[in-house]
C-alpha cells in the first residue's frame, strides 16, 4: 500500500492497519477499491519507470564518463610521448631530422662536385696528352723528312764534286740534327706514355672515388630511410592515438544517443501521472456529492481507461505486467 492509497483511504474514513484493503474498508466503499488500486498501480509503474530510466541514464553516463576518461588518458599519453618519448623524439626532433637530411644532401653535393672537378681535370689531361702526342709525331715526321732531305743534299754535294764539299758538311750536320730531333721526339713520346699512365692511375682513383660515392649514397639512403622510419613511427603512433580517440568518440556518441532515448521517459511518466491526476480530480468532484456509488466508480474507471494514450497504461490498468516500450514505431502515410 502506498502513500496515495493511504491518504485516499484516510479521506474516505477507512482503516488500513494491514495491507488488505478489502478487509478494512467499510462495506459501503469496497466498490471503490479497484479504482484506487488502478491509481496505485499506475503511480507505482510511473515510479518504477522513472527509477529504471534514471538507473539506465546513470549507467550510460558512467560509461560516457569512462569513455571520456579513456579519451583524456589517450590524449595525455600522446602528449607525454610528444614531450619526452619516442613519438616526438621525431616530432620535437623534426628539426634534427631535417638537419640530418640536409647534412646528407650536402655531403652528396660535395661528392658530386668533387667528382665533376676530377673528371674535368682528367678530361683536360687527356686533351693535353693528345696534343703532346700529336706534336711529338709531327716532330718525328719533320725529323724523317729532314733526314731524307739531308741524304738528297749529300747526293747532290757528291755530284758537285769539289765545289760541293762544303755543302756536304752542312748536309751531314742537318742529318745529325734530324737524328737528334727524332730521338727527342721519341723521348717526348716516352714521356707522354708515362703521363698517359699517370692519367690511367687518376682514372683508377676516380673509379675508387666512384665506389666511395656509391657507399656514401648507400649510407645516405640508409640514413634517410632511418629518419623516414622515425617520422613514420611518430605519425603511426599519432594516427593510432587519433583512431583511438575517434573510436572513443563514436562510443560516446552512441551512448549519448541511448541517453537521448532514455530522457524521453519524462514524457511518458508525465503523461501517466497526468491521466491519474485527471482521474483523481474526477474522483474529487464525485466526492463533493458524497461517496460515489458502484456505477459512478465504474464510469470513472472507464473514463480513466479511455484517457490512456500508451498501450502500456491499459495493461497496467488491467493488472497485467508492463511491457518495455518499443522505440521508434514509424508509420508513413
Amino acid at each position, binding site marked *: 500500500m502506498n502513500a496515495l492509497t493511504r491518504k485516499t483511504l484516510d479521506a474516505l474514513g477507512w482503516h488500513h492497519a494491514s495491507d488488505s484493503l478489502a478487509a478494512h474498508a467499510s462495506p459501503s466503499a469496497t466498490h471503490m477499491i479497484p479504482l484506487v488500486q488502478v491509481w496505485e498501480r499506475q503511480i507505482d509503474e510511473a515510479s518504477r519507470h522513472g527509477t529504471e530510466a534514471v538507473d539506465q541514464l546513470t549507467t550510460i553516463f558512467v560509461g560516457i564518463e569512462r569513455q571520456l576518461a579513456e579519451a583524456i588518458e589517450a590524449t595525455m599519453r600522446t602528449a607525454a610521448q610528444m614531450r619526452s618519448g619516442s613519438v616526438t623524439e621525431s616530432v620535437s626532433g623534426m628539426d634534427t631530422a631535417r638537419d640530418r637530411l640536409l647534412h646528407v644532401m650536402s655531403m652528396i653535393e660535395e661528392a658530386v662536385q668533387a667528382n665533376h672537378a676530377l673528371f674535368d681535370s682528367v678530361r683536360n689531361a687527356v686533351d693535353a696528352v693528345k696534343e703532346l702526342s700529336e706534336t711529338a709525331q709531327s716532330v718525328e715526321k719533320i725529323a724523317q723528312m729532314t733526314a731524307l732531305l739531308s741524304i738528297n743534299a749529300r747526293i747532290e754535294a757528291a755530284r758537285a764534286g769539289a765545289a760541293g764539299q762544303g755543302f756536304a758538311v752542312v748536309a751531314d750536320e742537318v742529318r745529325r740534327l734530324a737524328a737528334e730531333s727524332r730521338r727527342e721526339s721519341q723521348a717526348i713520346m716516352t714521356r707522354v706514355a708515362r703521363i698517359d699512365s699517370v692519367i690511367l692511375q687518376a682514372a683508377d682513383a676516380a673509379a675508387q672515388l666512384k665506389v666511395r660515392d656509391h657507399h656514401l649514397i648507400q649510407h645516405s639512403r640508409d640514413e634517410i630511410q632511418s629518419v623516414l622510419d622515425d617520422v613514420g613511427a611518430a605519425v603511426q603512433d599519432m594516427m593510432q592515438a587519433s583512431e583511438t580517440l575517434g573510436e572513443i568518440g563514436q562510443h560516446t556518441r552512441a551512448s549519448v544517443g541511448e541517453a537521448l532515448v532514455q*530522457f524521453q521517459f519524462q514524457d511518458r511518466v508525465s503523461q501517466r501521472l497526468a491521466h491519474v491526476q485527471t482521474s483523481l480530480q474526477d474522483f474529487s468532484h464525485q466526492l463533493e456529492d458524497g461517496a460515489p456509488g458502484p456505477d459512478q466508480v465504474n464510469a470513472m474507471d472507464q473514463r480513466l481507461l479511455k484517457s490512456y494514450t500508451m498501450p502500456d497504461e491499459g495493461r497496467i490498468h488491467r493488472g497485467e505486467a508492463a511491457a518495455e516500450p518499443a522505440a*521508434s514505431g514509424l508509420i508513413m502515410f
Partner: protein
Amino acid sequence: MSKSILIVDDSSSVRTVVGIALRGAGYDVLEAVDGADGLRQLDGRKVHLIISDVNMPNMDGLTFLKELKKRPQYKFTPVMMLTTEADESKIAIGKSEGARAWMVKPFKPELMLAAVTKLVLP
C-alpha cells in the same frame, strides 16, 4: 540557407532531444509548447516541416493539425506526429487530417532524422 522545422510538444525534454538531433543535422529549429503556441509561432513564417505531439494542454496535436491545414499557406507543409499515442483511431484521425507520418515515442534520433529527411520540403 538552412531549412526550418517547428517542434510542437509540451515536454521540454522531448523538445530538447528532438532539437539536438535536428540542429545536429543542420536544420533551424522553432519550438512551441502546445498547438496554440505552435500556431502563434508560425504566424505566416515558412517552415519546411512540423513535428507535433498529440496529447498537449490548451490545444492538442490533432486540433493543431486541423487548424493548420485550414490555413492555405500551410496546406502543403508536411506534418509528422511524434507521440506516445498509439491508438489506431487517433492514428486514423491524424492521417485523415493530413499528417504525413506518425512516430511513436520513445524514438531513436537517427530514425526520426531518416523520416525527417523523407518528409522535409525541398
